[in-house]
């Protein structure tokens, strides 16, 4: 009689990586003559406790869920999408555009239409490198990077020259019907924090991605292709089509980022709003081992990191958070390989 065992091994790598990066952070803090205990103490006491702070953390976690999923889906499909930054820029811009100029759309449909436009923009921006890879074998890493810059340049040209509110770097405001309500207005909790209903959307999308990857046929095909392109072809899966599809889905997820900032918070698109969430999404996905439900947790973690770094800014520069994030990525990729190898050895032993 053997009890089903819950497998905690996959958590070991990320946990160690986080611990190590905090330790290195402590050394940095020591190096500049502050006390790590005080700084981390301040950090945690300021990021937990009241509902305003929680709202701030959730607000920061929301876009990370989208970009984290974007990265995870592409990793699962065996591709590397570093183009989330460009995809979300194009997507958020289109979201704003539909939000402020879609007068002909019935008001009840304006918000969904804006979301669809954002997602479609991101999907298109992802599908182009996908197509180039499938058709010409051009490497998606380089092309998604290039698409980042093309997207940013194109959107900044459009914002500064075509859709500008003079003396700003943002578009006109969206129609009221397109706005996503803030949670503090709906529930009374999170007073003053910008967290909004798009958090719910993000959570739903995380869950849907989980179902998609493990319970659906297209998800099965996506993972099979990601793990072995040869075996996928053997199984009758059209690998070229998968390549375009994976990057389109990934880009489509990144394209939803606009829901949080554009529809839920500022109600316009602003250049440079994303603050690297496209890249941090890669860290979010890696730390969650590309699991959609894990991404909920790691997004919150990075949300805490992002907001917490603001609270300690008076004592140590807030860029400490960027440094911690970078170190975490480094250690996750190094450690998880070691842990996986060890885990396999353990399983083989128990199987024998």
């Amino acid at each position, binding site marked *: 009689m053997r009890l089903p065992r819950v497998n905690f091994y996959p958590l070991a790598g990320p946990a160690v990586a986080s611990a190590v990066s905090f330790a290195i952070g402590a050394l940095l803090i020591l190096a500049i003559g502050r006390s790590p205990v005080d700084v981390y103490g301040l950090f945690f006491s300021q990021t937990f406790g009241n509902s305003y702070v929680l709202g701030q953390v959730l607000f920061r976690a929301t876009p990370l869920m989208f970009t984290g999923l974007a990265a995870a889906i592409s990793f699962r499909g065996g591709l590397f999408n570093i183009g989330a930054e460009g995809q979300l820029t194009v997507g958020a811009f289109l979201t704003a555009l539909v939000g402020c100029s879609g007068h002909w759309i019935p008001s009840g449909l304006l918000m969904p239409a804006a979301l669809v436009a954002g997602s479609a923009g991101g999907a298109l921006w992802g599908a182009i490198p996908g197509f180039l890879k499938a058709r010409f074998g051009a490497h998606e890493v380089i092309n998604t990077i290039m698409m980042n810059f093309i997207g940013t340049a194109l959107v900044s040209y459009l914002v500064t020259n075509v859709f500008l509110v003079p003396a700003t770097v943002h578009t006109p405001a969206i129609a009221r019907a397109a706005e996503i309500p803030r949670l503090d207005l709906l529930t009374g909790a999170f007073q003053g924090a910008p967290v909004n209903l798009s958090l719910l959307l993000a959570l739903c999308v995380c869950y849907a991605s989980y179902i998609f990857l493990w319970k659906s*046929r297209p998800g*099965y095909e996506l*993972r099979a292709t990601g*793990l*072995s392109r040869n075996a996928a072809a*053997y*199984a*009758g899966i059209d690998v070229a089509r998968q390549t375009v599809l994976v990057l389109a889905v990934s880009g489509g997820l990144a394209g939803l980022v606009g829901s949080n900032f554009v529809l839920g918070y500022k109600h316009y698109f602003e250049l440079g709003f994303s603050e690297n969430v496209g890249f941090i999404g890669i860290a979010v996905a890696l730390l969650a081992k590309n699991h959609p439900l894990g991404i909920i947790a790691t997004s919150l973690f990075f949300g805490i990191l992002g907001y917490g770094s603001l609270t300690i800014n008076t004592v140590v520069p807030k860029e400490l958070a960027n440094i911690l994030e970078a170190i975490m990525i480094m250690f996750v990729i190094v450690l998880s390989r070691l842990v996986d190898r060890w885990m396999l050895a353990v*399983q083989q032993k128990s199987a024998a």
Partner: protein
Amino acid sequence: MKKQGKTVILITHKLNEVMTISDRVTVMRRGSVVGELETASTSAREIARMMVGDDVGQPVQKVPRGGGETVVNVEHLSVLNDRLLPAVRDVSFTIDQGEILGIAAVEGNGQSELVQAITGLRRFINGRVVVRSGNASDRLSTRALAHIPEDRIKFGIVLGFTVLENLILGRHREPEFSRLMLLDRAKIDEHAERIIEGFDIRPRRKDLPVKSLSGGNQQKVVVGRELSKDAALIVASQPTRGLDIRAIDFVHSAIIRERNRGKAILLLSSDLTELLELADRIAVMYEGRLNGIFHTSETNERELGLYMTGFQKHRGLEAAQS
């Protein structure tokens, strides 16, 4: 060397080597010696029995076959290899119901490309492959065809998947396993348990990552999945490469059972003993062409070897291409 008075220790799992070269045999199992025998006074079967610990089941016997109808018809097939050079040149043959056609060739004489073309993994430049009524170049016909690929790690299984997930690879679109866009977990579970039981995959756990299984059990995953498909044509490439005796025996029996059930089987193997044991007819390929087709009962390793290396050319082809 033995004649020079040297002592030779030969470590192998190839029993015919042991039987022909050695004087004495020491059999080891799980790190300890289980017996020591004089070669002259023992048999390969006895050594095999000692190696695996119990009697290697009497292999399934081939039943004599009645003239079944033709299942696969390969006509004037020409295929290019990865470097776009001709690998298969104008190859034609047929396989009937309940027949195993073996392909013998020295590595690199076009046999792999031939199999890939027949199974739809490689385009062919000329000729056609007709499986019963459907055309094999068409991907839809993966259902009509079971394929045990040459390189199981590369094609046959997804190493990162569990045993369960691997057991539906290539069959995941069958209506039995997926409704709308969702996979039917209950049906898949049932299917997996049936194969794990039926093909004796160990350990008997469908949720293990397939990479934690031994090579023999991984191969059983592939063989089990493909043979449970009920396809008219089975293409088996090197189905026993790298397996231990017990697993080899198991796979051989499974193949013969399918033959007896009336399947057409194309068997590619670099092991001539295996071909002679299993096949009804053996086609020899040399430099991309068929260089002879033999009835197994009328040929031997020596003759096949001469045709495989091109020392002798063309025999029995006219009859096969009629």
